[in-house]
């Protein structure tokens, strides 16, 4: 009996969806727009995050050592720095590595290569590249290094220069901006979601309002609440599912189009320097498809289904 009832409710829901073509179309358009707003937020936050990570990643401090500094002193210092809680990574670049990187970069420029030959030997100091977990912590790390004043056996400092002061301005600004950007992004996202929910809710309310007389007839014929409301909820869920599918297709199209667009706009050279900006959205879409699918499909089903459930309620009081 329950199975028969469920079957009948489902069938009535499908038939409603199909026969009320125009209303269903209107609902699908509205829900699709709302879900697209969700999708846009997902993309915006993905793009913003990748941009932020990119910029954060580009910020570091370099400790340059004197040319006479011993490698094992430097490695000892590296080990020590790694134990600091604020530090996320420390890379050691020996003077040989620095030289070969330089040579690779400028090998086609005869003038610079000639200049290098004239200097003779290896003018590049060894260095440590330090990245903090949070841009706000660079100051502490720099202070730590300065106050520590590591010395070699002869008692002279092995640190030649810390370039924190040069990067300080960028680091400070980023530290100030990032939380603001993240917070305002969240507020805008919540506002968007609220507006979307209200619009969908009202659309579905109107659709069910047009059926209020039929709801009361169904009740007067002796149908139970579940039996009257069920088909509306099924139709509502169908609006959500169809809208979600359309939205996911739109998101995929947008992701690939925007990536191609950014690449074209920036030019392949620039884009390859900012490796992370290339294919951000399509890569993100593919990598997180399962979550995006659940979010969009889930929001669609909940929006359509719950709105219908609640909207039908007031007309059931016959």
């Amino acid at each position, binding site marked *: *009996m329950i199975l*028969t009832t469920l079957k*009948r409710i489902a069938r009535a829901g499908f*038939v*409603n969806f199909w*026969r*009320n073509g125009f209303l269903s179309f209107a609902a699908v358009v509205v829900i699709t727009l709302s879900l697209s707003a969700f999708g846009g937020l997902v993309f915006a936050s993905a793009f913003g995050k990748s941009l932020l990570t990119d910029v954060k990643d580009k910020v570091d401090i370099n400790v340059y050592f004197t040319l006479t500094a011993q490698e094992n002193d430097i490695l000892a210092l590296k080990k020590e720095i790694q134990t600091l809680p604020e530090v996320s990574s420390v890379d050691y670049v020996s003077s040989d590595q620095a030289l070969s990187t330089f040579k690779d970069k400028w090998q086609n420029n005869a003038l610079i290569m000639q200049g290098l030959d004239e200097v003779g030997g290896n003018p590049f100091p060894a260095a440590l590249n330090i990245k903090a977990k949070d841009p706000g912590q660079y100051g502490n790390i720099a202070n730590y290094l300065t106050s520590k004043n590591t010395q070699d056996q002869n008692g002279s400092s092995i640190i030649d220069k810390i370039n924190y002061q040069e990067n300080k301005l960028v680091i400070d600004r980023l530290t100030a901006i990032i939380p603001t950007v993240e917070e305002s992004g969240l507020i805008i996202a919540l506002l968007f979601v609220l507006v979307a929910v209200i619009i969908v809710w009202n659309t579905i309310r109107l659709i069910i309002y047009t059926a209020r*007389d*039929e709801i*009361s*007839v*169904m*009740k*007067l*014929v*002796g*149908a*139970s*609440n579940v*039996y009257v409301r069920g088909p509306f909820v099924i139709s509502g869920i169908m609006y959500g599912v169809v809208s979600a599918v359309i939205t996911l297709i739109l998101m995929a199209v947008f992701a690939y189009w925007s990536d191609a667009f950014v690449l074209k706009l920036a030019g392949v050279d620039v884009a390859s320097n900012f490796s992370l900006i290339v294919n951000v959205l399509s890569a993100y879409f593919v990598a997180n498809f399962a979550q995006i699918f659940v979010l969009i499909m889930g929001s669609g089903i909940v929006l359509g289904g719950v709105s219908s459930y609640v909207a039908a309620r007031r007309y059931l009081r*016959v």
Partner: protein
Amino acid sequence: MIYYDKVSKIYPDKSVALDEVSFSVEPKEFVTIVGHSGAGKTTLMKLLIAEDYPTHGSVFLESTNIHNLNKKEMSKLRRRIGTVFQDYRLISNKTIYENIAFAMEASGRTDAEIAADVPHVLELVDLAHKIWNFPSELSGGERQRVAIARAIVTQPDIIIADEPTGNLDPTNTFEIVRILKKINEMGTTVLLTTHNRGVVDAVGGRVITMENGKVIRYDKTGKYIL
């Protein structure tokens, strides 16, 4: 079978639709309630299917006070009463078949019963050929016959018909009366409201006359005096 006990209905705008109305209806009776528009006939019908609630008094079906029922019992009670409305109230996006099937589905009949009974009842009201049409494709008389088919398909104990002929021409009117009489002969209690003298005379049966929310006459057989 049906018993109205000093029923009053006062609407929120203080207009009195029913004023201490009492009468009873015996099983298998065909009772006609007559009166001008606004005499309280429709309110009387609405109270029986609990579409509305009385301000004072009670309405009993057998020994059950209709307005004390909970939702579930209410749905069950409504399945015992087939209702024909003046404005048909068919479901516009369902076919004639589905409209009638809906009443059966609501009362929990099996698919096999529905498939067998719906065409049968449509034959009874002479609309078998319109089974897959939508209500908007039917004339007023045809829609009213569908509404009757929907009301009788579940074989309810009682049929209430509120001005079923109000919007129909004389030919259709007498067709409807003929169908209702036939249903009554098969053992169903029928409660009919009308302001049409011809209908009253054609039905025969007991007549209750109402005016301004009060019952002013009871007549053993068809008589229209106003």
